[in-house]
């Protein structure tokens, strides 16, 4: 396992699909990541496959394929064993400190007790991430120095 870094972030497949198909606070959360080049979004092939399947079912295969292509370019690929929970395993093997998920079961006390011994991981719904994200303090911890502001167009 890579040591967890607050600059490394995983979004579960439901969050990646909601970013595309619903927008709102989910898109706000991922815009935070997209507009900072020093933050890294991680994904495994299994996580991308889950996302593509959701988008294909609710938005059609062409949109799903185009979305996957864009995600593949925007994420660092992480490998994990087949059968593992794609989001948790990506976070664990990729050294992520943040997992964005709408899955209540991943945020339960029981899940926290099982995750924390293995990974220093904060599991949050996207609205909480969007609300609590503090780029200035994170920049100081990850990069160092004064936060220069966003450095990328989040919708490019």
């Amino acid at each position, binding site marked *: 396992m890579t040591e967890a870094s607050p600059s490394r972030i995983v979004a579960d497949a439901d969050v990646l699909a909601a970013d595309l198909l619903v927008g709102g606070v989910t898109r706000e959360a991922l815009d935070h990541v997209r507009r900072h080049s020093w933050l890294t979004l991680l994904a495994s092939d299994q996580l991308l496959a889950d996302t593509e399947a959701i988008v294909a079912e609710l938005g059609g295969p062409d949109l799903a394929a185009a979305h996957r292509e864009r995600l593949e370019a925007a994420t660092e690929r992480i490998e994990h064993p087949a059968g593992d929970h794609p989001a948790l395993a990506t976070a664990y093997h990729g050294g992520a400190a943040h997992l964005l998920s709408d*899955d209540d079961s991943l945020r339960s006390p029981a899940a926290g007790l099982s995750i924390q011994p293995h990974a220093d991981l904060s599991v949050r719904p996207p609205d909480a991430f969007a609300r609590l994200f503090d780029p200035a303090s994170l920049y100081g911890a990850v990069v160092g120095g004064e936060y220069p502001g966003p450095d990328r167009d989040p919708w490019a």
Partner: protein
Amino acid sequence: MRDSEPWSRGWGDAVAPAGTDRTRCIQRHSVPGVFVVSHSSTGVFLPAPACRTGMDTWADLFDRAAEYETTVVEIRETLADRRERNDD
């Protein structure tokens, strides 16, 4: 609002904002698929990683997705069904 964001100030078209006309992308590198966009006033060529043939920008994707009406609940249920099937 997006025009006032810091990334856009002074960068011209370097990051290919939403709605960028793909015909403005000019191939300048020998690496296939890597393009640059000309700054309209200076003629300076800057890398534009998002401006590639065949790949939609996030803005393009959000525009295309806007025609579908779905909810977070539907998305959650679709994912739960898929993962349940995969577990079987």
